[in-house]
């Protein structure tokens, strides 16, 4: 009783639950992540720099970040459209379609990978349509972009949906009363409210695509310098027992994802401020 009063806590269990939380968090997350950082501290700066900027590694950054950017852009455009359609329009089967948007979160990446590789192979459903027209998807960077688009698909839709639901219809009515046509209302009233969430969804999809592995390796072809993603290069180095090389690249990717996490937090704060205003 005296203890709880001293801490101004009425409810019990602060000590044990916080203690367990910190213990479990350290054991599972913080100590293992620290291992990655300390493993690279054994390298000199020169060793580190040369192993994370060698031509093959640099090419893998280009492939990974370039494809992730393309996929996130596709998702930004079509995700915005999908969120709008799902909130504002009515059509049969809408609830099923809405639930299906989350499929990439639930479907294991290996399944996505082998399926896309098969569908876009020369005699697959899509490949047999595209290849006679000279469009090759399987084993090229286009395949990587498609896989990244699939796994990043839910982010823009799910970030944007609640924002569109929250838009007061009165604002649109007001714009209408002031003489704006529908297009002007969308451009000057609706889009400014939606932009921070579109960017948040874009950043989330981009971050997810940069780290993705399972859905990509089957369709990518994995040719060094051409269609090899950084995640795969880390595994290749590990398999060659080049632990230092693998760790150094992993650290670069980890820092990249933390920078993205920071950017996402800033974007989310921006959209929350906009929602409250």
């Amino acid at each position, binding site marked *: 009783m005296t203890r709880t009063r001293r801490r101004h806590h009425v409810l019990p*269990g*602060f000590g044990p639950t916080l203690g367990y*939380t910190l213990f479990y968090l350290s054991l599972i997350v913080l100590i293992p*992540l620290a291992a990655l950082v300390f493993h690279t501290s054994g390298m000199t700066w020169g060793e580190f720099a040369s192993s994370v900027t060698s031509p093959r590694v640099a090419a893998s950054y280009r492939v990974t970040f370039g494809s992730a950017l393309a996929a996130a852009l596709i998702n930004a455009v079509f995700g915005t459209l999908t969120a709008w359609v799902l909130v504002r329009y009515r059509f049969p089967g809408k*609830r099923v*379609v809405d639930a299906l948007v989350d499929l990439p979160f639930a479907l294991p*990446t290996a399944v996505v990978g082998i399926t896309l590789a098969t569908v876009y192979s020369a005699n697959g459903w899509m490949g047999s349509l595209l290849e006679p027209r000279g469009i090759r998807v399987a084993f090229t960077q286009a395949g990587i972009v498609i896989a990244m688009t699939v796994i990043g698909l839910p982010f823009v839709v799910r970030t944007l949906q609640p924002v569109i639901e929250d838009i007061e219809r009165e604002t649109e*009515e007001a714009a209408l009363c002031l003489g704006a046509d529908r297009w002007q209302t969308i451009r000057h009233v609706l889009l400014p409210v939606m932009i921070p969430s579109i960017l948040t969804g874009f950043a989330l999809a981009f971050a997810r695509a940069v780290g*993705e592995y399972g859905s990509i390796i089957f369709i990518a072809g994995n040719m060094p310098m051409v269609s090899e993603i950084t995640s795969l290069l*880390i595994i290749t180095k590990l398999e060659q027992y080049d632990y230092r090389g693998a760790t150094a690249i992993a650290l670069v990717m980890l820092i990249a994802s933390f920078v993205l996490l920071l950017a996402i937090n800033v974007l989310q704060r921006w959209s929350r401020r906009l929602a409250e205003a």
Partner: protein
Amino acid sequence: MTMTAHDVNRRGSVRDPKRDLTEPAPVRWLLTAVSLSFLGLFIVLPLAAVFSQALEKGTALYWEALREQDALDAIRLTLWTAAVSVPLNMIFGLAAAWAVTKFRFRGKNLLITLIDLPFSVSPVISGLIFVLLFGLQGWMGEWLDASGIRIIFAVPGIVLATVFVTFPFVARQLIPLMEAQGRDEEEAALVLGAGGLQTFLKVTLPNVRWALLYGVILCNARAMGEFGAVSVVSGHIRGATNTIPLHVEILYNEYNFTAAFAVASLLALLALVTLALKSFFEWKLREQLLRGNSEAHP
């Protein structure tokens, strides 16, 4: 941030009768068609392809692929892994949510950020960190080797990597909801003479049950389907360290496509069940929030 009854009402009334407040009908049809084609191409088509490929050579081969010893071993290991990692992360999620939402302390936001951290670590790196800790060249490698304990290329490594990648699922569902529900009900129960554990079991747990189940089902789906992280620590030993997704990869790389898709169809079914349950829990959660709101303001 959290869902309120206000949002729910709005969700129900998506269509406004006033024509001027929406796009002209042809534009609406066009936008709907484009968006459905996008979803069809990137979601429905791959999903249909899994089942089509799995059953392409008839149901006999399909069942044979699932009854094969390596497949059964993979299924058993996946169930094992999920049975260990999901309860661990559930207990952690409940403890963390209680500590974070029922008390005020410094560094709370940092703690919430750290809990979410595994979501921003890529799968391959999630596996790599455990190789660096427990692998032969790792921090504890020599000691573990001398004591005859195997973690990497063995089941404990698979479980650890799975626990890491599914770490935030339950906590991040519970924290916003319990934050919104506040402390009043628990405090009332204590004042009425209930013990701490009793309050948690009889008041808190029923209040968060749908969010908890929601987190658990997503955690389970990821635990059973994780590929990248598990692939790094597993060593791909057939019958010993092969989970279902790894078995799919092996079959596919051996050009045994029918069997690969047969096993993959199990994971696709799991994904569909997960989505259905998820929608159900979301619906229940919304219903609960609506009811809670009408009780508070009759």
